[in-house]
């Protein structure tokens, strides 16, 4: 029985992998165990793709300790911008600052205050609104504040070498875009942001007047449209034009078809309008974070514990989700299973996303503190990180970024940035998957084989090797690799193998079929003859028996 043999092989392979893993853990001393998912959706031990390189705190960067930082961003100029949300400035007014370092974490400058002189027209407009009573004094002083009040999101748009910094200034109800003119020569290299545009709450005839405008994240596309993520809005991200005009919403999630939603839809058919009004409204879950890649696709994530769909979306400029239009809608992101462990339920809550220049996606799971790395076809590559106190584990993860082959994770409670570096195994897999996704299956064969030598549990390697052999026309080997790893791959390989098999042995098949047909014909003829003879015999016996009698 081939399957038993296969199972035995797999068990040995798993044991060997576990043994290798144990030694590698002992060597690399990681506080988390690397794992991955196999074809069955079961977690299996795996080699670590990323290990901790170093941990940086505020002191390492040359500034005061960070205080609940909630976002960071690597600009195209390879500078790191950190939104230090709860920092108390020495001046006493405001809350929060932006810390800017280069990629080696040496301080470039910090921003604590803003200069609004560049937007005098806008200020005058707001002043007149205040005088007309369209704007309250509190709101006016918020949006025209010269200091931050809890900045939770930062994005940098580099245009011809000039950095424009966009900050989601959450408790000031605004997003500010500013540039830096000159950097102070004090200890913290304090710089003042020269404001270009301020994006505030849209006029109430376009924007629901009952919901607040507390921007939590911000990003800018190539056309300089500003996308603002607001936790209280379920219609998607709020989009502003470059000049600060409200353009609409972008990329709302779908309403998940739960039992309650379906039941409500049924009742709505029956209820009168007054009754229907009193029902709970079915609204989609809000998007909680996003990122944009080089081709201007926007990726959104949903943090909700209960959400099953639209966890990660890849949206084109029309707002259509690429990842559900591929024909598969059963993508799973984060951990596959909800685990109950020591009185706590663990189900993935994806809080941040980062897409690097190769299209590799890093998802950050708030609940388990893990980073889930996917390629651009949503194949799970690596899982690393965790909850804990050691290096490489976190308390409350807030942001993930990547630069080159390093992944950076920001911890809001530990107030530090952990740098993960790629292992040798990680490099092999990345090389292989890059070639594989370009369709260069044969070139990817050597790295996949190497990956499999290091970790025989690594499921993607089987797919890669199967495709390589399938492309070469070695269908039998391809089938071997696809067996219990990919049904579609196995089907393709098997189809071609069967075709070849029949073609090669056509004479044999023809002879067998002819012999069978002839055999059936001869037997039927013979049986017919026997039957006729038997019947004649019976008739004769019958006649003999009744010879003496008159009528029969």
């Amino acid at each position, binding site marked *: 029985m081939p*399957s*038993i043999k296969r*199972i035995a092989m797999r068990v040995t392979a798993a044991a060997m992998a576990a043994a290798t893993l144990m030694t590698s853990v002992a060597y690399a001393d990681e506080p988390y165990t690397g794992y991955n998912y196999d074809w*069955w959706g079961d977690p299996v031990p795996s080699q670590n793709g990323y290990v901790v390189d170093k941990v940086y705190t505020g002191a390492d960067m040359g500034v005061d300790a960070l205080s609940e930082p909630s976002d960071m961003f690597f600009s195209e100029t390879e500078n790191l911008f950190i939104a230090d949300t709860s920092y108390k400035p020495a001046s006493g007014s405001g809350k929060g600052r932006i810390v800017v370092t280069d990629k080696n974490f040496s301080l470039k400058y910090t921003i604590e205050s803003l200069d609004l002189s560049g937007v005098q027209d806008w200020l005058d407009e707001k002043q007149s609104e205040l005088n007309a009573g369209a704007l309250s004094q509190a709101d006016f002083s918020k949006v025209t504040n010269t200091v931050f009040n809890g900045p939770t999101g930062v994005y940098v748009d580099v245009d011809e070498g000039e950095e424009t910094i966009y900050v989601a200034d959450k408790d000031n109800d605004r997003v500010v875009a500013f540039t830096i003119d000159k950097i102070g020569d004090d200890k913290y290299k304090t710089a003042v942001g020269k404001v270009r545009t301020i994006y505030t709450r849209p006029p109430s005839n376009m924007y629901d007047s009952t919901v607040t405008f507390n921007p939590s994240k911000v990003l800018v596309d190539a056309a300089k449209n500003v996308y603002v993520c607001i936790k209280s809005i379920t219609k998607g991200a709020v989009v502003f034009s470059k000049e600060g005009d409200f353009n609409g919403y972008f990329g709302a999630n779908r309403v998940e078809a739960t039992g309650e939603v379906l039941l409500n839809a049924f009742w709505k058919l029956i209820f009168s309008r007054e009754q229907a009004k009193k029902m709970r409204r079915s609204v989609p879950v809000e998007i909680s974070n996003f990122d944009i890649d080089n081709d201007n696709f926007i990726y959104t994530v949903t943090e909700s514990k209960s959400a099953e769909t639209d966890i990660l979306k890849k949206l084109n400029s029309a707002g259509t989700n690429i990842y559900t239009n591929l024909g598969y809608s059963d993508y799973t992101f984060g951990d596959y299973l909800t685990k109950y462990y020591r009185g706590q339920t663990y189900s993935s809550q994806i809080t941040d996303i980062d897409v690097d220049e190769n299209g590799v996606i890093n998802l950050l799971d708030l609940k388990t503190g893990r980073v889930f790395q996917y390629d651009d076809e949503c194949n799970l590559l690596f899982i690393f990180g965790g909850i804990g106190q050691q290096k490489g584990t976190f308390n409350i993860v807030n942001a993930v970024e990547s630069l080159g082959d390093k992944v950076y994770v920001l911890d809001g409670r530990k107030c530090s940035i952990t740098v993960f570096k790629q292992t040798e195994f990680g490099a092999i897999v990345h090389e292989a998957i890059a070639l594989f996704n370009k369709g260069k299956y044969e070139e990817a064969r050597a790295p996949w084989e190497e990956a499999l030598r290091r970790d025989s549990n690594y499921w993607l390697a089987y797919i890669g090797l199967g495709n390589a052999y399938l492309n070469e026309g070695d269908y039998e080997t391809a089938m071997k690799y696809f067996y219990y790893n990919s*049904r579609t791959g196995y*089907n393709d390989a098997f189809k071609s193998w069967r075709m070849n098999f029949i073609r090669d042995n056509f004479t044999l098949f023809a002879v067998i079929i002819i012999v069978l047909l002839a055999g059936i014909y001869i037997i039927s003829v013979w049986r017919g003859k026997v039957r006729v003879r038997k019947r004649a015999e019976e008739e004769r016996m019958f006649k003999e028996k009744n010879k003496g009698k008159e009528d029969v």
Partner: protein
Amino acid sequence: MRFNLDMPAWKWPFYIMRHPFEGFEDLRWKKAYNMKVALVIVALLFIVSVCGELMTGFLFNHSSVKIFNIVPIVIRTIVIFFTWVIGNWALCTLFDGEGTMKNICVNTAYALVPYIIGQVINIILSNCLQKTEGAFITFISYVTILWTAVLLISGMKTVHQYSIPKTILFMLITILAMVVILILLVLLVSLFQQVYIFIYSIYTELLYRFSNLEPTALIFIFIGAIAAIFAIVVAAYTAYEKHQIAKERKKLNS
């Protein structure tokens, strides 16, 4: 008579398969119920189910081969078969059914032959066909299941001498009876588990009480106690038997 019905016992299932309606009548008329053949068919059903789990081609195999467990298969085939037989007998005897347990068992088993043959064909086909040709497999399994259902109705009708609507009604009620039997079985099993837990907790209790004793000594005491109870029961039984024999003798003597 076109067919010679004096055939060996193993040919009967195939004859019945080809004659769904008169086959069982002939079987009844010839009184050719054969328990051995029926049990072989049940065994084959079990084997085919195991093979279906293990040997169905990868493209069509949706069972979890990673953890192969034989207990569900035993329950799915053998246990369900015998619960059906017992449930049907227990029910239909009360409602003018003429079938004995043996006859019901044999008829049910003979009705399963098309399903088994269909499964075998499917296992072979699943290793030769590709995904898009899977319709053949579905077709074969539907046809054979339908055939088995027809045979089962015919068999139950013949064995109890019912009308067709009554047969179908009592087959449905039999399913309910099976559920009841299985629930009782589960209860019984859990009861025995409770007994086991009871004895085990006595053992642990003793272990704590006499913690100064060696555990091995305790085991000996425990075994000794059980042996003593057993000995008393045996002694009482032999005494009773002696008494009975003496009574008999007295009767004979008088």
